[in-house]
Structures are given as C-alpha cells and as structure tokens.
C-alpha cells in the first residue's frame, strides 16, 4: 500500500464493495494490485510491453465485471490473477510467439539489449537466462489449463490455497492438475533438450 493511500484503514472487502460504485475505490484496488499483476505478467512473458498489455486487459476486464464479482475468502487477488492468467494466454494467442526455442532465445537476447537492460541482472539472481527461456518455451506448448495452473502457482506469488481459488478449484484438485501439468512440462523440456542436442528446432 502506498503512502498516499486515500483509504488507509479500509479493509479489502470494504474496498471491493466501494469499488462497485466508486471509481476512486477501484483505483485504489488497481494501485494495490498493479505491481503484483505486472510482476506476474512480466515473469510469464519476459517483456515489459507484453506485461503492460496484460495489465491493461486485466484491469479493464476487472473494471467491467466487478459488479459480478462475489467476495471470497482470500480476497480479490485470486480473481484478478485468474483474469491476468487468461489474458496472458489470450495475449500469446493474439500476438503469437516465436515458435522455436532458438527464436525465443533470440528475442530474449534482443530485448535484454534494448529496452530492458536490467533483465539479465535481475534474472541472474535466481536462475540463468537460458533456463527461463527453456521453461517459458516449454510452458507455452502446454494446454491453457496447464499453463494457468503452473503460472498461477509458481509465477504469481500466490500460495497454494490462493492459486487454487484463482483456478476455481479446491486445493486437492489443483494438486492433481499441477502434477499432470508438471509432467507435461517435463516432457516438453525433454523434447526441447533433445531438439537442441540434435541441432534442430523442436517442432
């Protein structure tokens, strides 16, 4: 929450109720969640522009449908992340991605050198670039549902319960979906690895 928060003492549930009728309250929700949604979209896409696209689409969708949102334990965050996850998948469908790991690596390389000079540094703290690139390539090839499950669980800074809510599932059901999704991801990573070893494109 920011220092100039106009609703400092208002809990989130009350804020959501106000946001249905008061644009200032909605704007406050927006300011609270934008950094997290942006970080999620940025990690998932690796691109500032794509992350902004996803954020725009997410908050516009939330704004249009907040009247129909029903408060649930855990707050509005999982609902927003669910929309963001859908919008990320939609973004990829709309824009397309380089179909090969090499293509994606080239794009990542270019973007690091141009508009995101700090990308390498930030990622290097945790995991090497090529691993991110491989994971992203493999994740892109999974079904939207598996993509959602993995992205919401691991990239959205949500705990398992929140991720389950974001998926509209019970925790045990999410665990089952995640298990299958991880196996599918493993298969795609193996395919990528084989293709890279053989010098071809994993198509």
């Amino acid at each position, binding site marked *: 929450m920011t220092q100039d928060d106009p609703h400092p003492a208002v809990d989130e549930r009350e804020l959501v109720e106000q946001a249905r009728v008061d644009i200032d309250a909605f704007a406050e929700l927006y300011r609270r969640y934008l950094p997290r949604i942006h970080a999620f979209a940025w990690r998932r896409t690796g691109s500032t522009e794509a992350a902004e696209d996803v954020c725009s689409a997410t908050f516009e969708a939330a704004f249009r449908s907040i009247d129909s949102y029903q408060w649930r334990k855990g707050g509005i965050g999982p609902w927003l992340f669910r929309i963001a996850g859908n919008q990320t998948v939609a973004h990829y469908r709309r824009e397309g991605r380089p179909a090969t790991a090499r293509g994606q690596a080239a794009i990542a390389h270019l973007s690091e050198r141009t508009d995101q000079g700090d990308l390498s540094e930030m990622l290097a703290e*945790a995991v090497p670039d090529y691993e991110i690139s491989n994971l992203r390539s493999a994740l892109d090839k999974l079904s939207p549902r598996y993509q959602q499950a993995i992205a919401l669980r691991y990239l959205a800074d949500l705990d398992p319960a929140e991720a389950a809510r974001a998926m509209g599932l019970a925790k045990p059901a999410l665990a089952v979906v995640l298990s299958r999704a991880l196996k599918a991801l493993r298969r795609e990573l193996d395919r990528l690895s084989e293709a890279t070893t053989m010098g071809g494109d994993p198509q």
Partner: protein
Amino acid sequence: MNDDIERRLEAWGSASAPDPDPAFSARLEADLRSQAYFGSGSQAPDPSPRRQVFRPAVLVFSSIVLLVGALVFLRDSTSAEVIMSAASGTEVTLPDDTVVTGTAGLALPDGSQISVDAAGSAVVDGVVLGGGTRAQVTNGQLEVLLTRPTAVPLPQPPDRAKTRPTVGPTATPEPTPTTPPVPNPQPQPTPVSTATPPPPPEPERTVAPEPTPTAAHDRDRPTRTPTTRPMATPGEVESVTVSLSIEALGEERALLTWSVSTDTFVAGWEIIVTSGDRSRAIAVLHDPTVRELQVERLENPNATYAVRASASGGAVLGQSNGVRFPLAD
C-alpha cells in the same frame, strides 16, 4: 522427478521483477477513470453516490423496464441476441473470462469482448470490425471501443475498386495521454431534440478528418487513450447537424460516411437502424474522431441507417438523415 522442475519454477517465480512504469500506471488509471466518467456502456462503477441511496427505487424501476423490454422483445420476431456472422483473426473473451476463437455463428452474450487482430476482421450484428478493433457487447448492443486504421479486405467489383478513394475505418489518433478527468464532473447536458435535420448536401469525401495513422509500434498497445471531451454545461449544449452518406462496397457491404457541423461536445456515435416503426442502435462508437463504418446488408431492404451524435453522459446532440443500403452495381 518433478522436484527439479518445481525448484526451477520456484526460482523463476522468485526472480525480482521490475516495477511497472509510472507513466504506464498513470495512463492506465486515467483510462479506467475515463471509462467510468465517459461511460463505456459497461458495468462501470457509477461515480454518483445516488446509486447507493436510491438502489431500491432503481431496482423497482429496472424491473419495470426489464418487464416492458421483455414484452417488446417477445413481440418482436427479430432476436436481440448479438451474433458474430463472420470472423477471421478474432478472439472473444466471454463474460466468464473464457477466451474462444471468433467464428461465424458465435453468440455473444453481454460482457463479451471482441478483439480483432491487425490482419483480421469480423462481422457482428451487421457491423464490420476491421483489423485492430476492440469491441464489447453491452445490453445486447455492440460497443466499438477502439478502431485502427486498417483496411478490411473486401471482395469488390474491379470498377468500383478503381473509383473508391479509400477503404477502411478512419484512423484513430493516439493523442498524448491526458491527466485523469476531474473527479466531480459537471452536470451532464440535457438531451436535446433528436429531430432529423434537413437532407444533407451531396456528401463530400473530405469531411472526415484524416488523423495521422498510428505508428506501427503502437499497434499492440491495448490501452486506449481516454477521449477527453469538454463537459458541456446545460447552457452550453448545442445541437449539431450530422450528414450521412452510404456507398456500396459490393453486393453485401457498404460504407457509411458522416460529417458533423461541429464536434466540440461529441463524445461518440450511435449507428441506428430503423425498420418500420422500430429503431435500434446496432453499434455504439466511443471514438468521436471516427467518421466511417462498414456495414453488411440488412435483411429488410427498406431499413435505413442513421448516425446519432452523443455527448458525454449520453445526451443526444443530433441525428443524421436516414439512408438505405444501396443497390449494388
């Protein structure tokens, strides 16, 4: 075996991410506020606190309106359902956030959002959506939120193709993002008469302003710049004269082109179709700079199109003459 992948995913998820660009944050917030104040016709939060105070009364009134609307609907043989009759390169986000590919015959419930690729096109409720268009369905009505200067591919007779000056929606200018609108908007203008103005002179092809086409690198940016129009006070409201012409683009499509005497207070347009004694808006355009729209032939050959200019807040500033779908050559 999945442990290794989980570890890598967790590392990926814990990688620090950049904060959103403050300029982007401010622009998006301004856009959201503009939707609230200038109305995207959606479920947008109403800035007026009266909505809370009079909620029971509004509910009763809404019920009556719904009942009357349902009766009218049942009397009318035409369906109010909005249908996508053609699509390529189009995605639809349904109200439950499911994303589907736009296809012919797809029913679009209220809340559906339509996104047309730069190279795609779609036809919804007889309105042709060109590449880059964003639209949504609200109250059974198509709302065009964003148009792009992209030509819609059309089958055209060669002779007409030669003589037509341009094809495709008017470019949408992308002005510099503005500051958020004033939180307490001034009183909305009082609706004025919608009397049809006298028949227009021979339509001119130069009436529409020709904004500079959007740069290619801006194509992917979905944030629509808020269209800030002056808020008219009741004393300032002036009716406008809208002149409409229509030109066949083939057997099944035509181009509506309109001009307006002054667009100072125009915040958007409604495309009205009148069939017999019934009129309905087939599209609402939230871009006052748009001056043309492609449409598909209506089932009723006697139905007419008209364009209505609206001020922010929905007050009607003027309505064009009615024109019929032309006979193709």
